[in-house]
């Protein structure tokens, strides 16, 4: 449903600032009298802190203060939960252990903050931090997920008596009953490993307490400025109106920047309050590897029961989820796994159960893909295995089990991250499968191309994988729109932006209703002073939820405009049109009034206004969906494996994708490209190598490789459009799409490229080295 502005490929409003170095990022904030913080972090993954001696650091010239947990007084306590555990699932176990501002008696992961130095420069602060003496009593680290739950494992929390953080069991139908009547049961054991978000901008905060106005301003690399403000108010004992949080331009989010009440957020703002001076902390890359949350470590035991003609009777998936040292983000990720495992398929009997485990690693919070990635990997691997066993085409077995277009809304009965029973709202899954097959040339590749290449000695394979992306969850977002006396439009919303193009896409939504060029719509995001209600940018919800709120606010302003103009132009509202910043009588375009004039009239400086009217052409509106909208798609790729180096090169990658109504196709495609880039990193290079003592072995971009330009293929995208019935614009989210289906498609393609070994790959990432090992094992078998 493209309109004049909506759905158009418009260039971005924010780009000139970003391209000329004029956009403000947190580290660009420079204030008079500003101090700099450096944290001393634990070298041990697990140890008692016997003593901390900061005296030498305190003497260091240029140091203003050194604080440890003991100095924090009343504000030292475990932070609030970011997300509560789910309601509505019987029997949930949830042992809450949230992050603390700095470690007190015990450190629970390498990189945990134990002290902070505040000094006149960052250089001095780091020098002095090295002079703090901490006496540790090292403990055995809990790293292995299965051993963590075993008898005699060391414990992160002695008082709990276990490393079990959570247990959740959900079942729809009866898997046991399905398995009893199955012709075939396929089983798999899946291991996925941790990676890191690696936003190019590290985290950072500048806090500035002003004694005269009794207020704190905080610039933060956060995806949730409003929630951060509210939480800080509680923690610091201030009133919400005393705190302004600004998330300016943020250099990539991808999930970890939605985590709230991070130790540095609290310590830096508290220090500014103590010292009455601005304090800045900017994370460095090495710190980022040890103190910014991560994701993607689960171990699954899964099975699927089928009839002999390939119909799925049931799925059972029992898994362990690594939450690291804390569980501040509760169960969002494993709940996403539970709801996304069955994906686009009809699974009448589905048992899904997990245990969440505390380990001596940095905590786990959502990272682009956020739990969906593993569920999809598990299911797609089971599908591949079943197809092989039944001698069926891998796309046919998928197609025959898909939810059909006339079966929506489709209820899976499993409670998801929004605590609602999962409902898939709309879609045409078989069409996306067909489209991806057509784009990659499925039949021709398998029948002609691949045999020909194999005859030439090339190891080329095809992978194809389907996915769903639950997106755009509640609770709500809001927006306020004001037509100024200049005729320009101001739009503010609470979500922050980390590159998603909100300055443009939101302007497009408003422009469509108001008939104003999006260039003349000035968007503010992520500033609690501009708008102070909202939840944040996560779960691919910005466009869907905040976009819908913008639409609702724009509609209200439109109504005000029409009502006023109708009186002035003496024409019924139905005969008026809004275009080019004017309201005109459609048939008599010379009878018109500009929005600028109307805005002035709506805010008279003298005289009486009609009782019951509000001044100004302004409206605020909110939008909250009943449940999340589900986008989906199908990804196919062709991979060539070098039989000597086991390096895999992706030759082609296609994606047929449906996220409902598109606000700006250029921005949408960019989101998919980026997601695919991350998905390929997760498939291939990206694994945090942790030794048994909890020491990270590859904490730099030299050793932890993220994809470079020459590692990635061009990505071909096709759009399908099934508008979501859950919001008036019909939008579904897209932020995580690219990251979800890539690992299963990749390993399937690798298997297909090396048929001689009959591989069954059940892990991601799959580095060349690891593939070599797997092939060697297969040769021996």
């Amino acid at each position, binding site marked *: 449903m493209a309109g004049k502005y909506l759905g158009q490929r418009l*260039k*971005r409003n*924010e*780009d*000139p*600032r*970003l*391209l*000329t*170095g*004029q*956009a*403000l*990022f947190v*580290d*660009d904030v*420079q204030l008079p009298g500003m101090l700099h913080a450096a944290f001393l972090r634990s070298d041990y993954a697990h140890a008692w802190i016997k003593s901390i001696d900061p005296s030498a650091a305190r003497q260091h*010239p240029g140091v203003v203060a050194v604080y440890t947990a003991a100095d924090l007084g009343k504000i030292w306590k475990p932070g609030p939960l970011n997300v509560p555990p789910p309601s509505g699932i019987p029997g949930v176990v949830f042992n809450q252990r949230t992050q603390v501002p700095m470690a007190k008696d015990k450190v629970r992961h390498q990189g945990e903050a134990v002290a902070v130095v505040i000094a006149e420069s960052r*250089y001095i602060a780091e020098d002095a931090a090295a002079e703090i003496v901490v006496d540790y009593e090292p403990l055995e680290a809990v790293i292995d997920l299965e051993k963590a739950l075993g008898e005699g494992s060391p414990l992160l929390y002695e008082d709990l008596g276990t490393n079990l953080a959570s247990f959740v069991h959900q079942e729809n139908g009866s898997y046991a009953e399905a398995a009893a009547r199955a012709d075939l049961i396929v089983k798999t054991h899946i291991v996925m490993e941790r990676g890191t*978000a*690696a*936003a*190019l*901008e*590290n985290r950072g905060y500048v806090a500035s307490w002003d004694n005269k106005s009794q207020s704190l301003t905080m610039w933060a690399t956060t995806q949730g400025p409003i929630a951060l403000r509210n939480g800080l108010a509680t923690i610091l004992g201030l009133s919400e109106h005393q705190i302004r949080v600004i998330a300016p*331009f*943020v*250099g*990539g989010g*991808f999930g970890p920047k939605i985590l709230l009440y991070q130790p540095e957020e609290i310590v830096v703002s508290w220090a500014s309050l103590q010292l009455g001076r601005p304090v800045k902390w900017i994370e*460095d*890359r*090495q710190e980022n590897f040890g103190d910014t949350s991560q994701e993607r470590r689960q171990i699954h035991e899964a099975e699927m029961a089928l009839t002999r003609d390939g119909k799925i009777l049931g799925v059972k998936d029992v898994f362990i989820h690594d939450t690291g040292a804390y569980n501040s983000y509760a169960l969002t990720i494993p709940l996403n796994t539970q709801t996304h495992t069955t994906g686009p398929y009809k699974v009448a009997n589905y048992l899904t159960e997990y245990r969440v485990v505390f380990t001596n690693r940095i905590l786990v919070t959502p990272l682009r893909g956020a739990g969906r990635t593993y569920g999809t990997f598990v299911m797609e691997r089971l599908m591949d295995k079943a197809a092989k066993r039944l001698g069926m085409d891998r796309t046919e077995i998928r197609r025959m089990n898909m939810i059909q277009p006339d079966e929506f809304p489709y209820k899976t009965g499993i409670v998801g991250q929004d605590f609602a029973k999962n409902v898939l709202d709309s879609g045409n899954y078989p069409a996306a499968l067909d489209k991806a097959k057509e784009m990659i040339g499925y039949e021709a590749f398998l029948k002609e191309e691949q045999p020909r290449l194999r005859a030439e000695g090339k190891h080329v394979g095809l992978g194809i994988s389907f996915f769903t992306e639950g997106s755009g969850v509640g609770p709500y977002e809001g927006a306020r729109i004001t037509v100024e006396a200049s005729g320009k439009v101001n739009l503010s919303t609470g979500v922050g932006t*980390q*590159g*998603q*193009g909100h300055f443009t896409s939101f302007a497009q939504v408003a422009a469509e209703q108001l008939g104003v060029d999006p260039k003349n719509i000035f968007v503010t995001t992520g500033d609690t002073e501009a708008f102070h209600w909202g939840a944040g940018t996560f779960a691919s919800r910005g466009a869907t939820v905040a976009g819908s709120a913008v639409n609702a606010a724009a509609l209200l302003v439109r109504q005000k405009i029409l009502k006023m103009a109708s009186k002035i132009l003496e024409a019924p509202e139905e005969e008026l049109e809004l275009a080019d910043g004017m309201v005109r009588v459609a048939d008599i375009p010379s009878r018109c009034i500009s929005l600028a004039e109307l805005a002035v009239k709506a805010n008279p400086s003298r005289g009486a206004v009609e009782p019951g009217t509000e001044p100004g052409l302004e409206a605020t509106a909110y939008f909250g969906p009943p449940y999340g909208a589900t986008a989906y798609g199908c990804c196919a790729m062709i991979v060539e494996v070098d039989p000597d180096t086991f390096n895999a090169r992706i030759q082609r990658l296609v994606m047929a994708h449906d996220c409902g109504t598109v606000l700006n196709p*250029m*921005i949408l*495609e*960019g989101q*998919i*490209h*980026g*997601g*695919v*880039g*991350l998905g390929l990193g997760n498939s291939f290079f990206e694994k945090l190598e942790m030794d048994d003592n909890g020491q990270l072995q590859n904490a*730099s*971009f*030299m050793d932890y490789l*993220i*994809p*470079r*330009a*020459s590692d*990635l293929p*061009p*990505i071909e995208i096709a759009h399908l459009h099934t508008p979501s019935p859950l919001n008036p614009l019909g939008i579904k989210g897209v932020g995580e799409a*690219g990251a979800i289906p890539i690992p299963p498609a990749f390993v399937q393609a690798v298997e297909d490229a090396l048929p001689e070994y009959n591989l069954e790959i059940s892990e991601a990432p799959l580095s060349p080295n690891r593939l070599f090992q797997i092939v060697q094992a297969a040769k021996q078998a």
Partner: protein
Amino acid sequence: MSELVKVQVTVNGTRYEHTVEPRMLLVDFIRHELGLTGTHVGCEHGVCGTCTILLDGKPVRSCLLFAPQANGHEIRTIEGLGTMDNLHPIQEAFREAHGLQCGFCTPGVIMSVLPFVEQNANPTEEEVREALDGNLCRCTGYQNIVQAVQLASEMVASRKAEAR
């Protein structure tokens, strides 16, 4: 603490003279001493390319140099290209092709490939990807950056031709 040293540089045509600690990184000098915050820092260990500037016309990583090493040299940063109302063709091309999302990597990417763009009127995709390999971007999957660079090469070449 060691003696302070004088650093005199020309940045985007303006001469600056500051007295700093010898260990101050060039990127910190540019960002915090000179206030030119368009140059960013993504890793401080020479891998991501975010801090790339031109030193005497050549792309270098300003996180791997100390400020005194730039003494007497010419520096060009992103602020020395176009302005918001009058973008340089390479900036225009990045906007046109949606070669940036969060924009954090962008100044470094642009400064890295500027000499390449000026010297290659019609580079292949492979050449462009290779030219970009010293810069990390986590948002774009590089696809639109590649297109932006190709477009920039064309635009720069056609401007040169017009000027002739």
